[in-house]
């Protein structure tokens, strides 16, 4: 095993199709026009010495180490800033250049601590490498002059340290923060000898820094270094794997010492992230080895009993006996399972297979139910398949970006950085969001339009945008004629042109000024390539599916589909939401989104699996819980999801779980749901197993095992063990065998294999006979369903209304440093940034209630009450409050209701009528939760209780 090192060209090779040929050190080399001499040299394997250059950044030309000679030109130009030209003859090494470089290095080293042997960068220091490369043997200036050796150390950030004494002021960190991340938190302060890197006059932790790690990665010395490197030393081998957080699905090198992770470094050849990362993927991996991990299977007869540790065999046998008993007593449909978007495709596939082939029903659902199920429904109805249309790179060609109900700088930070790069180059941005999210106005980014719509009015807004486009003659008629169902279009155009859908008519519903909506619609329709990106602010509504179809209508009407720079693009919450849906996790669909009633598909599965399968849809998660409360659903197998924290109306969820006779939880930790479980299967982290994740751009990426599973089994092996105990024959030697079966049964995965993934690095489905190399952009010549279908999208107000008793609307969401229910990130140092969920409230609403910053407030809805701290901010609009759900003790979902999307039952998290008042006590639910947090988690072994 070796340490993977990507090639660094110093500057990026240009993307031009025009090539130029030049001669470097006597060898001819051909590169795309616009590439630098440095990149041209590297492409033939010649590494010109450099310090301020790295190909993640634009050329800067400050270190003067990469000087070359070019025949016919005077002086020694910097190779990083000199474009390669046709016929150019370059010399990278001769006595004169060697002397120049050595002089430059002397200057650097004369003001650098010479503690290489004890320096954390020892063995991974570009300054050290360059000293070696130029043959530096002495420093004529000595070390006694003015210097920076007593420079300060800033160790405020939990994950990395800044040592000013080791800084060579190359500006790579400053440029990485600006060019790669787009935060502009760093600068060079002072001039000349006084120049130094500054995080804006405060320490790193207090600064605008978002801890993405780009500066650390860019630093050529030990000035910015991971604290894990300082503590552990350099890694000795690495493997490329995929992040276990959001739906961007970044590729990382897990850099290891034996089975210990030293650091996670974003992989430059990973196509989702191209070498960038965020604070979660880069640094927040410590949960994987948290002391809270449960590493032994456990069982108990009643949830009030303490857990008893058991062998895998005993746990499997016990769980199987219970499920068989329940089905014998209450019927075949009395059990089901929930798959996880945090598990691999292979693990999800065997879970749904266990349900369909083993339980004999279709009672399988997935956590996408509560996030992006409307995406699946809406895009399938309009386009014919349940997936986003583009790859992430497509945003680089967008001219107008319509961002709806998404906050990518917090929830999808690496994609946000890519989007911000495009915005800095001139693309226009329209933000539709009740809150003034960061992208409305941040350094070098300013939205052309912000539509601060009221929660629950998405469909009225999208209809109004479409109304303007139709009534002002802005429809792309050529596209509609060629690509869409004309009768459906004409029907829709008549519907949408009705004045009832005009911006003026819906102002009372949306709260948005009609002129702003008209301006936004005109910009989107006429501004060039228009791309729609959206998040859970679209889907988690009673009309989530309608809104998805409304966006599809808008994209079709403006001809913004089927090429780069356009499309309808869901930003998926969890890393494998797309994959979990693709793998047949929904109760009405087999893998590849084929309905269970389709005889030909079902027979294919029956033939391979050797069983008869149910042709009727099974229960969705809310159906399971409702049926449990009603007494007909008695057993559930929950893999990698915490429904007692993440799903709405917590007390109803708990009521359902308490009514069941056997709840099996498979997880890394004793989560909230496990309090109501009878069997606990310890899960494996993403570092402990092989498999694949599919990100929001349909990209299938490898997950690679870098350490043994702590509990002895990977998650797919656990499902197989349970299946075997149930008498279900599911045998695979490796996850690659499971992928082979997926490919055999799923037309869009037909050509996917581990060999293919090794060859290509990753691939976007459909990957089959028609698309051997995968499909970056969908619906290029025709839609999957043939003609695109315009859908009628009548606005239907949610039944959840604000009123005198509950005058405010609560909307929930995410924050950068925490992830989903927080099970992972709460067990890392990310808590430094977000140690508790806060209620964001507008100054007007706060003042009228006598609420001050940091006050404990009671948040009450029609169904529940919790208390949390308030923070006052004018990024909220009056009448709307906001909180996150990362901490279980906050109980955000105690107040959310059972209202849901009409088509998919995706919960309406984004609209809850509430009242807020000052309080000095926690709610009765919170008191009860604290008590059960201890009493329902006891483990009967020496050493006593395990806390979550």
């Amino acid at each position, binding site marked *: 095993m070796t340490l993977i090192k990507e090639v660094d060209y110093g500057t990026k090779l240009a993307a031009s199709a025009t090539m130029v040929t030049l001669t470097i050190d006597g060898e001819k080399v051909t590169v795309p026009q616009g590439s630098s001499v440095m990149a041209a040299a590297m492409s033939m394997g010649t590494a010109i010495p450099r310090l301020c250059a790295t190909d993640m950044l634009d050329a800067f030309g400050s270190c003067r180490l990469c000087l070359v000679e070019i025949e016919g030109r005077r002086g020694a130009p910097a190779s990083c800033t000199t474009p390669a030209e046709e016929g150019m003859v370059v010399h990278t090494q001769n006595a004169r250049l060697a002397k120049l470089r050595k002089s430059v290095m002397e200057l650097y080293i004369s003001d650098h601590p010479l503690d290489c042997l004890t320096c954390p960068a020892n063995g991974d220091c570009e300054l050290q490498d360059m000293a070696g490369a130029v043959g530096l043997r002495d420093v004529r200036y000595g070390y006694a002059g003015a210097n920076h050796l007593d420079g300060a150390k800033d160790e405020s950030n939990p994950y990395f340290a800044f040592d000013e004494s080791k800084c060579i002021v190359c500006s790579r960190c400053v440029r990485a923060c600006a060019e790669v991340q787009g935060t502009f938190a760093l600068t060079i302060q002072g001039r000349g000898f006084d120049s130094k890197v500054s995080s804006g006059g405060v320490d790193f932790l207090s600064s605008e820094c978002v801890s993405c790690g780009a500066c650390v990665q860019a630093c050529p010395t030990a000035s910015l270094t991971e604290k894990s490197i300082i503590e552990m030393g350099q890694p000795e081998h690495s493997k490329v794997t995929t992040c276990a957080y959001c739906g961007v699905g970044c590729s990382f090198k897990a850099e290891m010492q034996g089975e210990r992770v030293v650091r996670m470094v974003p992989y430059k050849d990973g196509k989702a992230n191209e070498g960038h990362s965020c604070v979660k993927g880069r640094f927040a991996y410590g949960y994987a080895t948290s002391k809270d991990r449960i590493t032994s299977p456990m069982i108990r007869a009643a949830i009030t009993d303490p857990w008893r540790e058991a062998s895998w065999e005993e746990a499997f046998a016990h769980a199987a006996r219970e499920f068989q008993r329940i089905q014998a007593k209450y019927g075949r449909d009395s059990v089901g399972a929930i798959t996880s978007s945090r598990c691999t495709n292979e693990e999800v596939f065997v879970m749904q297979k266990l349900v369909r082939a083993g339980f004999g029903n279709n009672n399988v659902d997935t956590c996408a139910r509560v996030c992006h199920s409307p995406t699946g429904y809406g895009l399938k109805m309009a386009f014919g398949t349940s997936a986003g249309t583009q790859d992430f790179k497509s945003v680089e060609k967008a001219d107008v970006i319509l961002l709806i109900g998404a906050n990518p700088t917090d929830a999808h930070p690496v994609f946000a950085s890519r989007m911000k790069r495009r915005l800095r180059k001139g693309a226009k941005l329209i933000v539709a969001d009740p809150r003034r999210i960061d992208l409305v106005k941040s350094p070098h980014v300013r939205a052309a339009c912000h539509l601060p719509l009221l929660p629950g009015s998405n469909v009225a807004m999208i209809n109004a945008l479409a109304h303007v486009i139709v009534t002002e003659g802005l429809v792309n008629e050529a596209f509609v004629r060629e690509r869409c169902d004309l009768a459906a279009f004409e029907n829709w155009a008549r519907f949408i042109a009705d004045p009832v859908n005009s911006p003026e008519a819906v102002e009372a519903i949306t709260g948005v000024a009609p002129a702003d909506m008209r301006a936004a619609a005109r910009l989107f329709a006429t501004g060039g390539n228009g791309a729609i990106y959206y998040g859970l602010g679209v889907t988690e509504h009673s009309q989530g599916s309608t809104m998805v179809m409304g966006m599809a209508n808008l994209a079709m009407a403006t001809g913004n589909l089927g090429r780069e720079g356009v499309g309808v693009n869901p930003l998926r919450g969890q890393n494998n939401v797309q994959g979990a849906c693709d793998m047949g996790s929904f109760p009405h669909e087999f893998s590849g989104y084929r309905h269970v009633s389709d005889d030909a598909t079902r027979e294919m599965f029956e033939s391979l699996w050797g069983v008869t399968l149910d042709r009727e849809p099974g229960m969705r998660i809310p159906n399971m819980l409702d049926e449990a409360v009603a007494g007909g659903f008695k057993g559930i197998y929950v893999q990698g999801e915490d429904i007692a924290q993440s799903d709405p109306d917590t007390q109803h969820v708990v009521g359902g779980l308490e009514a069941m006779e056997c709840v099996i939880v498979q997880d890394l930790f004793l989560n909230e749901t496990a309090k109501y479980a009878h069997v606990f299967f310890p899960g494996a982290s993403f570092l402990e197993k092989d498999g694949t994740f599919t990100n929001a751009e349909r990209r299938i990426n490898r997950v690679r095992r870098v350490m043994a599973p702590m509990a002895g089994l990977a998650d797919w092996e656990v499902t197989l063990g349970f299946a075997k105990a149930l008498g279900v024959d599911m045998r695979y030697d490796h996850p690659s065998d499971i992928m082979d079966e997926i490919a055999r049964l799923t037309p869009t995965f037909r050509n996917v294999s581990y060999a293919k993934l090794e060859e290509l690095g990753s691939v976007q489905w459909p990957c089959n006979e028609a698309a051997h190399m995968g499909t970056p952009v969908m619906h290029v010549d025709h839609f999957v369903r043939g003609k695109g279908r315009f859908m009628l999208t009548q606005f239907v107000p949610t*039944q959840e209304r604000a009123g005198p008793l509950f005058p405010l609307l609560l909307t929930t969401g995410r924050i950068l440093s925490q992830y989903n229910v927080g099970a992972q990130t709460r067990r890392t140092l990310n808590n430094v940034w977000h140690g508790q969920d806060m209620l964001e409230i507008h100054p007007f609403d706060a003042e009228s209630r006598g609420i001050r910053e940091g006050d404990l407030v009671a948040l009450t809805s029609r169904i529940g009450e919790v208390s949390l701290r308030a923070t006052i901010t004018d990024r909220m609009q009056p009448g709307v409050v906001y909180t996150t759900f990362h901490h279980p003790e906050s109980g955000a979902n105690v107040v959310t209701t059972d209202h849901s999307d009409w088509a998919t*039952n995706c919960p309406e998290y984004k609209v809850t009528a509430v009242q807020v008042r000052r309080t000095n006590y926690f709610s009765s639910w919170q008191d009860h939760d604290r008590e059960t947090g201890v009493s329902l988690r006891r483990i009967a072994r020496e050493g006593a209780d395990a806390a979550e």
Partner: protein
Amino acid sequence: MSSASRHDEKLVRMANQIAENLGSQAHDDAVAAVAEHLRAFWTPKMRRQLVDLAAAGGEGLEPLTREAVRRLAV
């Protein structure tokens, strides 16, 4: 309200919600679409319960929902 009543009330509410969202189509198309949606996404037991509720008077069911449920019954 008993849990059975709440369960029934929720079924009626969800079915009406589907009808309301598909109701802007031509009437016959809307009836067919609602029935098809229920067939495609609701379990047989939920559909049966809805049919039984309609047969028992269908309190709370909107006219379009009732028509769609009648199609489920045949």
